Each structure stands twice: as structure tokens, then as C-alpha cells.
């Protein structure tokens, strides 16, 4: 159960785009065709491996309806990554991305890594938003982009893991202050011991992380 880092994620987007299903597929490797409506927040966690480091992902899945946004906002704070999800078969969920993005940017750390996800890619025959449109939106707003299917599990692992890789990269670049939990990153219990010794130890630790990536 030891881990080098803990990253906090949030999943946001309109009702019914498949946020909870993505989480369930990622944490439990199963698909529930009709998921219970999310009220408030749901929680999931899983360990992933990035560059040989164990990283614990702590994921907060939020309710989609606008009325709950005031409650949702308290979960934004202190997230290192966000999965912003729309449904490729429902254009209105794509049209609302700007407002979700504004909300997320406003209430979270400026370094937060945002992954744009076009979900339900298995429903190609009912596609309403072109892949290129998703890519263009992501490019324009500086997001990572993927199309996923929570049903077939296509790209689900990748979406969560690529977000983690990007956060990890930012840590190595020194963009994240890993000692400030408000950034949604926590150093694992073992690492804590070495870093809690003093500032020099923590610097050494971050250099170690940096050199690791250099090898890859």
C-alpha cells in the first residue's frame, strides 16, 4: 500500500455523460449500463505505476447538474487533475464544456492538468461530435484529449494514466509544489519520512524524481 505520490482527481461534466461509469471501469474494471444518479460526490481510488513509481490516484466523481455546483466546487479545491467529460452522441454536452472549464479553472490550482474526454466512443453510429472538434477544443484550451468508452473500457486506463503522467512531468519540472496539499498532490508515507527531515532532504527528493525521468 505504499506509494510515492498521491494525486487527487476530479471528474466533471454534464449529467449522463458517463462520469461514474468511467470511474467504475477504472477502479473496478466493470461496466454498469444504467448507473445510479450521482448525488453529491462519489469516491474511488486506484494505484497506478508511472515510470516505476507507485502513484495512488484518489478520484472524486461529481454530480452533473448545475444546481449542485456549489457543492461540487468544494471538491475542485486541491485537485491535481481533472477529467472533463462530454458525450460524443450529445452535442449539448460538448457545448457546455466552456462553462465547465471556466468553473474548474476558477476554483482550482492553475497547474491542474485537465484531460478532455469524449466518452461513449463505442456508439459510433450515433456520433454527434466529431473527433476533430474535440481535438480542436483541447488544443485551443491547452487540454489533453482522448476519446474513451467506459463500456468497452477502450482508452479508460490511458485517460487516467496519461493524466497522471502529465502531472508527474509537471512535478519533475518543478511546476507543482508537492509539499502544498492544496495542489492535490501528497508525497507517500515513506517519502514523507525522508522529506520531513528538512528542506535539503526534500530538495534531494525532488532531484531524484527529476533524474528518474531523464532516463526515460
Amino acid at each position, binding site marked *: 500500500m505504499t506509494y510515492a505520490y498521491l494525486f487527487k482527481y476530479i471528474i466533471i461534466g454534464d449529467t449522463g455523460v458517463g462520469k461514474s461509469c468511467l470511474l467504475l471501469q477504472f477502479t473496478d474494471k466493470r461496466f454498469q449500463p*444504467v448507473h445510479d444518479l450521482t448525488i453529491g*460526490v462519489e469516491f*474511488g*481510488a486506484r494505484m497506478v505505476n508511472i515510470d516505476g513509481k507507485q502513484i495512488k490516484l484518489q478520484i472524486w466523481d461529481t454530480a452533473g447538474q448545475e444546481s449542485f455546483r*456549489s457543492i461540487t466546487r468544494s471538491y475542485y479545491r486541491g485537485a491535481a487533475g481533472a477529467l472533463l467529460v462530454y458525450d460524443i452522441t450529445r452535442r*449539448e454536452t460538448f457545448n457546455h464544456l466552456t462553462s465547465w472549464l471556466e468553473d474548474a479553472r476558477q476554483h482550482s490550482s492553475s497547474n491542474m492538468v485537465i484531460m478532455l474526454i469524449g466518452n461513449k466512443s463505442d456508439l459510433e453510429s450515433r456520433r454527434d461530435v466529431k473527433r476533430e472538434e474535440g481535438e480542436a477544443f483541447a488544443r485551443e484550451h491547452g487540454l489533453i484529449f482522448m476519446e474513451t468508452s467506459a463500456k468497452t473500457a477502450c482508452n479508460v486506463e490511458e485517460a487516467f494514466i496519461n493524466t497522471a503522467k502529465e502531472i508527474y512531468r509537471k512535478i519533475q519540472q518543478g511546476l507543482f509544489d508537492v509539499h502544498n496539499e492544496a495542489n492535490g498532490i501528497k508525497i507517500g508515507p515513506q517519502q514523507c519520512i525522508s522529506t520531513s527531515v528538512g528542506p535539503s532532504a526534500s530538495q534531494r527528493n525532488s532531484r531524484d524524481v527529476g533524474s528518474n525521468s531523464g532516463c526515460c
Partner: protein
Amino acid sequence: MAFLCLHPLSDLQEPSSPSWLGSRSQREHRRQGDAPRWKPSVILGFGCASFASPPCPRIADFQDVLKEPTIALEKLRELSFSGIPCEGGLRCLCWKILLNYLPLERASWTSILAKQRELYSQFLREMIIQPGIAKANMGVSREDVTFEDHPLNPNPDSRWNTYFRDNEVLLQIDKDVRRLCPDISFFQRATEYPCLLILDPQNEFETLRKRVEQTTLKSQTVARNRSGVTNMSSPHKLSASSSPNEYEVLPNGCEAHWEVVERILFIYAKLNPGIAYVQGMNEIVGPLYYTFATDPNSEWKEHAEADTFFCFTNLMAEIRDNFIKSLDDSQCGITYKMEKVYSTLKDKDVELYLKLQEQNIKPQFFAFRWLTLLLSQEFLLPDVIRIWDSLFADDSRFDFLLLVCCAMLILIREQLLEGDFTINMRLLQMSARSYRKPRSSKTRSSLAARGPGLEEKTLTLCPGFWDTQMPVGSQPEGKLQEWPAPDLLTLGCSHRGTLCHAPS
């Protein structure tokens, strides 16, 4: 819809079964292959099974209270608090009284019901049929646009303007009601008494379902124009996307139970524009409607929609503050109630309270859903209904809910005290419904091992309570998690300081 058939409750509405409990417990005995260890009248406690004879004394108790010309509310509350029998529609009747839909004077019931049901029909005509008629005409006849009111009328008072605004609320409701209680098939099934007013084949009124389909189509067209794309997708493709194929399509003249719930919520939203519709209200209507739509009394069952609407409205009057975000941080808002759960816990189990505090597990992370939905997502529907008997009977109105929430925490205290943040969060957020499993005989046996008296008592208090099991593998560690056997409601009651004993 294969996933629905997997669930043991999918035959919840077997028409021949007197109640789901009866048929289910019988099946249970068959599956276990041993002689029934619990007489139905004991398992069902309140004589839910009509084959129990002689009649359970509890039924007689209820009947005694209910036959008085003026019902003694205190007495009824006291009885209902320990669970209401569903036999003979007792629960439906009691809920209607406890939720102030029916007055205490028996003599006025017939006229009140007739009046309210007529009022509801009027709501249907005004809010669902009227705009639909105009719309249907518009489609076939050109001259409609020259009428005083037409779809492009910029006047904010225009009926059409309202129509389009309402569609946004309707779309939101529609998405949620279609996935109401996904663990049972009830809400996907056709109703016994389709709403004749709307489904009248003579008139071809627009149903809400059709309105949703057409609205989706319309909004897509507009969006395309705005982005400068002039090519329209083929109508075939558009209609396919607006009626997702994962939902069963019922033949004309039929409607599914979820469509009834949709109408109730839509009319509530129209009549209460300040709150309109907030996610989660569907989970409040669900158990009410299910109870009334399975009323053994067919005369009342036929009016389940209208009766549910008024009971829901009355219930919302008491709990609506939970849904209003501007009240979130006020004395009557949800935040205050969530904190109340913790301050009560601090009183009852300070060790557990400190543990949760230390792990920074805030009540918002789990109690928000527990409280807002009156636990309707935490347990299987029959258990929810049983819990609601007590909640509706609570004279201090939902204070008991805080105690039940506390009891839920204390009942899993050993696991919580051992678990880390992740394990505890999963424990607290797992709902019985989303991780359903067939009833396990093991749980019952362990219950029986505590002595026949306890078994009888707990089962009487809350039949079906032990079904709320968690699955293997639902936690990262793959450990089997069960809600422990002690009686949640009894624990809640003991904290309340009320003697809550099983009736003999």
C-alpha cells in the same frame, strides 16, 4: 434489458404475488432447500403476506386505529414507527395520513381524494396537454403561425416561450427518471392504468416522451446553425440519437412507470418554479410512487399518480431546503444537517468521531446523499420503504433520520476504526443498491445464532434488512464487507430514547 433480469428483485412486481417480500422469502426457502425456518408471518412481521392466518395482531392494531371516525395521529405514528404492514393497502393509507394528504377525519376522505385527483387532472390538461395541442396543430397547419401566439413570438409572456423554457427542465428530468432504480425493472415496465387523458388515441396528444424527442432534435438543429454548419444530419440519425436504444420502447397507448414519475416531477417543477427540479427529487418520488402504484387496493392504485404527486409535494414542503443551494449554509440547509450528524456522533461515539475527524472525512462526503435522499439510494427499495415508515412517523420530522445516519456509522465502527481514508470512504459511499447481491443465508444464520428472540425482533422491525450486503471485489482490497447484523433502526431508536420494541 438483460441487466435488469439479473437481479433477484426484478420480479418485484409479479402480479400474482401479494407482496415482494412474500414471494421472495418463499423463493429463498426453496433455494436453500431446507424447511422454512421462519413462518411468513414472523419474517414479514406485519403480516405482509396475505396467506398468513390468523391475521397478524399488528394488522388488527392498525385497523383499530384507522377505523375511528377521527384518527388518533399519535397512536398511528407510534404504530407506524415500528413498520407498517402492506397488507390491504395499509401502508398506502398510513403514508397518505402521515404525509398530511388525508385528513384525520375519515368522513372527508372520499371527497378530498375526488377533489385532489380532479385537480391533478386539471394540472395535466393545463401543463401537459394544452401546449401539446397547439404544437400538434402547428405541425399540420400553416395558418397557426398567423395566430396571436406562435413559436417565434418574442413576447416573454408568450405561451410558446414558456414551452421552450420548460423543455430545458423537462430534458433534465427525463435523463434522470429514465435511470430511476436501475436495479429493478419496475419503472421500465408498462403501467396498469395508462393515463387516458394523455394517451387517448382519438386526440394524439403529445406525451412528454415525444416532447423530449422533438426537443432534442430541435436543439441540435440550432446548434448546428450557430456553428455555421449548414448541412443537417438526416432526420433518421437525429431521432436515433434522441431515443437511445438502451431504453425499451413501449408500444403506443402504453407508458412506463418512469413516464408517470416524469409527469409528476414536471408538474411539480411547473408549480414550484423557485426550486423547479433538482437532481435527487426523482429518488424521493420513486419509493412513494412505487408504494402507491403497487397498492393492493386497485381503486386507489388507479390514482397512484395523483396521490403520489400530492404526497410528494407535502413531503417536499418538509425537506425542500435540502435541495435549495442558496440555503446550503443556512440554519435549515443541508450543511447544518450534515454537521448535526457529526455532532450527534460525537455525543454517541466520540472515538469514532475523532477517527473520522483525524482522517479528514467530512460528512459532506457521504451524508449529503444520505440526508438529501432520505437514504433512498443506500438500501434496496423494500428496505427504503420500511425506513420511510419510521421517518414519516417521526413526530419531530426527520430528526430520526440523523439518528439513523449515526447508527449506520456506529454499526460499522470496527471497520471504520481500522480502515484508512480510502477504505473508509469506500465503506461509507457504498450503497446496497449499486452493489446488490442475492440474499445470503449466512447473514441470516448469524442472526439466528444470536437467539430466536432477537431474530424475530429484528426481522419484525425491519424485514429484508440483512440483504444490504456489499460484494466481493467492490473494494480495492477485495474484502467482503457487510453491514453488521444489529438492527439499524433499533440502534437509532435507542439513541432516540424511545422504546421501540417488536410487537408480540
